[in-house]
C-alpha cells in the first residue's frame, strides 16, 4: 500500500488523532533527550547505541509498522517498556521518569515522524 493511502486509512481508523502543535514540539524535545540514543537523531532506529544492541530499535519513519500500532500501544510501550507489548527488554519503561502528558507528547512526535513528514 502506498504511504498516502496508509495515512488516509490510519486517519479513518483514528490512529492519528488531532495533535496540538505545542504537544508535538514538547514531544520532539523529550524525544531528543530520551530516545535518540537508540532510535537515532533522525528517528530511523540507528542511534549511537545501535552497535551494542541485539535488537534493532523501531524505525519511527516506517509508516507501515507504525500504522499497525495504535496510539494506546505506543503509549504503553513508552510507559511500561518493550516487555509490556511483547517486544524487547532493551526498550525501557519510562513511566517512572515521564508523566502521562509527556508520554502523550512523545507519541504525538512519533506520529509526526511516521506519518506527517512532508505534509
Amino acid at each position, binding site marked *: 500500500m502506498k504511504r498516502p493511502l496508509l495515512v488516509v486509512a490510519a486517519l479513518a481508523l483514528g490512529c492519528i488523532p488531532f495533535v496540538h502543535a505545542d504537544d508535538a514540539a514538547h514531544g520532539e*524535545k523529550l524525544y531528543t*533527550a530520551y530516545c*535518540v540514543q537508540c532510535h537515532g537523531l533522525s528517528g530511523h532506529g*540507528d542511534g*549511537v*547505541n545501535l552497535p*551494542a544492541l541485539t535488537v534493532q530499535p523501531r524505525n519511527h519513519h516506517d509508516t507501515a509498522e507504525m500504522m499497525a500500532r495504535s496510539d494506546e500501544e505506543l503509549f504503553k510501550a513508552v510507559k511500561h517498556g518493550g516487555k509490556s507489548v511483547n517486544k524487547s527488554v532493551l526498550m525501557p*519503561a519510562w513511566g517512572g*521518569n515521564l508523566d502521562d502528558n509527556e508520554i502523550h507528547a512523545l507519541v504525538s512526535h512519533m506520529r509526526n515522524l511516521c506519518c506527517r513528514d512532508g505534509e
Partner: protein
Amino acid sequence: MKQGTLLAALVLGGLLQAPAALAAGGEELVRTECAACHALERPDYEALGIQERIDRKGPPLYYAGNKFQQAWLESWLQNPTRLRPAGIFPPAAVREAAESDVIDPDALIQHPSLNAGQASEAAAYLMSLQYHDDLIEANGYEPGSIAQRMGQLNFTKFNGCDACHSDEPGYGGLSGPELYTAWQRLQPKFIASYIADPVAWDPNTLMPKSGLNDDAVSRLTNYLKLIGEENP
C-alpha cells in the same frame, strides 16, 4: 605515637591541612572553576523542565559527597579521563552516519585537570556537598557476591543495562557512563540507590527508573562490584 596523635601533631605543625581547612580552600576553587558546568546547588528542576538536561554541561555536584569515592575523585581531577563516551548529553555530541549515529569527537568537552594540591582541596570540598543524605540513609544495600555469569545475565538479558552502558571496555552502549569502573568511582549505597530510583537523585536523569526490587538492585550492584574489582 598512635596514628591519631601523629595526625593531630602533623596538622598542628602545619605539615598537613585538616579536612575542614582543605574543604575551605576547595570551596573557592570549585565555585570559581566548576560552577559554569556543574550544579553546586539543586537546580529548580520543576521550573526548568527537560531544558535543564539539554543544557547541562556536566554532572550535578550538589550531592557529590553522597556519590563519589574521595580518593578516586582526587585522583581523577588530576588526570580526568572520559567516563561517558558520548559526553554528558549524547544527542549534542553525535552526528548521523551511514550505519548509525556516531560520536563526534570535536563536540566533546574536555575536562580541565587540576594539580595535586588543587585536586585535594576540591575533592575535600565536593565531599562536603551531601544534599541527598536522606537517600543514602534510606538505602539498605550491603555488598555481596554474585557469579560472573549470573551478574552478566542480569546486566544484559534480564535488564538491558548494556543498551547504554559498558560492563567491560569495548562492550556495551555508548550513551551512558562506563560501569566497569563504577565501583572504584562511586559509593556502594549510591550505586544501589541510583539503580533503584535515579529520578530521586536527578529528576532529569536519562536513566529509566526501573522499579526493580531490592534483591534485583543488589544483584546488579554486586555485579558492578565484581567487574569493578576486576578493573582496578
